[in-house]
């Protein structure tokens, strides 16, 4: 039930944000096209200050998520899939920032959405983490029964779980990323860690390359990976905190 509520919440947020942000995005892109691209095409005596202004305009457009590609601008950032991913980045507190609301209403909605979404996310992560722990303990008990190992089993299982988690969430995904995104392994690893720790710089974001095609299952699998990976990393960090305190 919790999972359903979580996914439903994300979907709702995505729809609302899309409705709020898309028109503004289209408008800004048209503005950029009109003002700067055509200006450049028509004026052949571009001086220093004019170039300055052009560059500043492009920078501003870039910051609001619009890039110039040929004669058109790359749009579709606030389509449903993009908005859904944005909702995820908001309530997991990853906050990539490559996409962020530019309308005032969008921002207010974002705040309210996160205000309820973040606790919801924390509860879900906690649940997943508990399930993982239970699974590990269950395995340990089973091993103890089968092999009569006593204390050794617990330690062994815990290290096993750590290694499996490491492989699954941090060491193997970069391989997928280098295939689908064209990043190096190191970049994929960096991206994985920055995402799962919720730091989320936004310098690398999956599915954002306009020159690449992504299979339809890609974003969904990634979302699952983020969810379980975050729960796992949270457990690891909790363990580190126990050591520190």
């Amino acid at each position, binding site marked *: 039930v919790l999972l359903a509520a979580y996914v439903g919440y994300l979907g709702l947020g995505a729809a609302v944000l899309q409705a709020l942000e898309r028109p503004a995005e289209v408008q800004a892109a048209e503005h950029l096209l009109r003002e700067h691209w055509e200006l450049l095409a028509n004026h052949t005596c571009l001086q220093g200050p004019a170039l300055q202004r052009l560059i500043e305009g492009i920078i501003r457009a870039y910051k609001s998520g619009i890039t110039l590609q040929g004669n058109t601008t790359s749009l579709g950032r606030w389509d449903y899939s993009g908005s859904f991913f944005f909702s995820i980045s908001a309530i997991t507190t990853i906050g990539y920032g490559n996409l962020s609301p530019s309308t005032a209403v969008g921002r207010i909605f974002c705040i309210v959405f996160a205000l309820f979404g973040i606790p919801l996310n924390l509860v879900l992560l906690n649940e997943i983490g508990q399930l993982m722990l239970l699974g590990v303990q269950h395995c340990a008990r089973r091993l103890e029964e089968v092999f009569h190992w006593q204390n050794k089993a617990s330690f062994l299982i815990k290290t096993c779980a750590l290694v499996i988690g490491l492989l699954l969430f941090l060491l193997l995904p970069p391989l997928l990323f280098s295939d689908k995104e064209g990043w190096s392994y190191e*970049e994929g690893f960096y991206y994985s860690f920055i995402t799962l720790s919720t730091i989320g710089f936004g310098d690398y974001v999956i599915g954002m390359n306009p020159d690449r095609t992504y299979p339809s299952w890609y974003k969904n699998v990634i979302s699952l990976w983020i969810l379980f990976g975050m729960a796992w990393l949270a457990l690891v960090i909790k363990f580190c905190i126990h050591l520190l305190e």
Partner: protein
Amino acid sequence: KAMFSGKLQTALLVAGYFVYLLVGAAVFQALERTAEKQEKMAAAQMKEVFLRNFTQLTAAEMEQFMKNLIEAIQNGVYPVGNESQFEESNWDFSNSFFFAGTVVSTIGYGTLHPKTAGGQIFCVFFALFGIPLNIVFLHRVGKMLSLLCKKLGKFLYEKGMRKKKIKFLTLLFFLATGILVFLCLPSVFFQITEGWSYSEGIYFAFITLSTIGFGDYVVGKQPDRKYFSYYRVLVAIWILFGLAWIALLFNL
């Protein structure tokens, strides 16, 4: 004796936390500074070439220029202004320190991020140890804040209020003063120092303290504004206590 060791622990924790941030800042600076310089030079050159050849540029060359410009921007280099830009670096010590802070607090604005492979790997390990350290640190700060609330509770108890009412009132007080001190007042402050509107300030405050940290608004990054020297430090202190307050709220 127990109290002394507790205070010593706290002092050590605080010291350790800041040392950790300082060391991180220095390492980031060392790793990223030269790469940044190279990119700045490349971008300036590109701009110069463009200007010189403008009237004879073909559409394809224009395309290329745009592409290069976008790439430069994506790498955080803004080729605006003239040569004096080389002196200021995104990776000077104060910026690197702030960056280290955004890493361990998991805010992660992203306006500044390591671009060298070495910087990125270091960032991962820096965060791996820094995030638990930050959480433990925030716990301590949070305990200080909750002590204030307990004192208020005690005061009310002595005045003869019932326990349930006290709990409710202290919670309310905690919430209200927190919102005032960490959300409303700073937004007014930012209105003056950053020129944002009040709602933009609130948005920034919320996005920062929730550690979402989109990076669309960041303090101290407006190119045409003068900030007084301890501005960043003040903001960092605000972030610290604000985060501790939010962490406490979740524990209540």
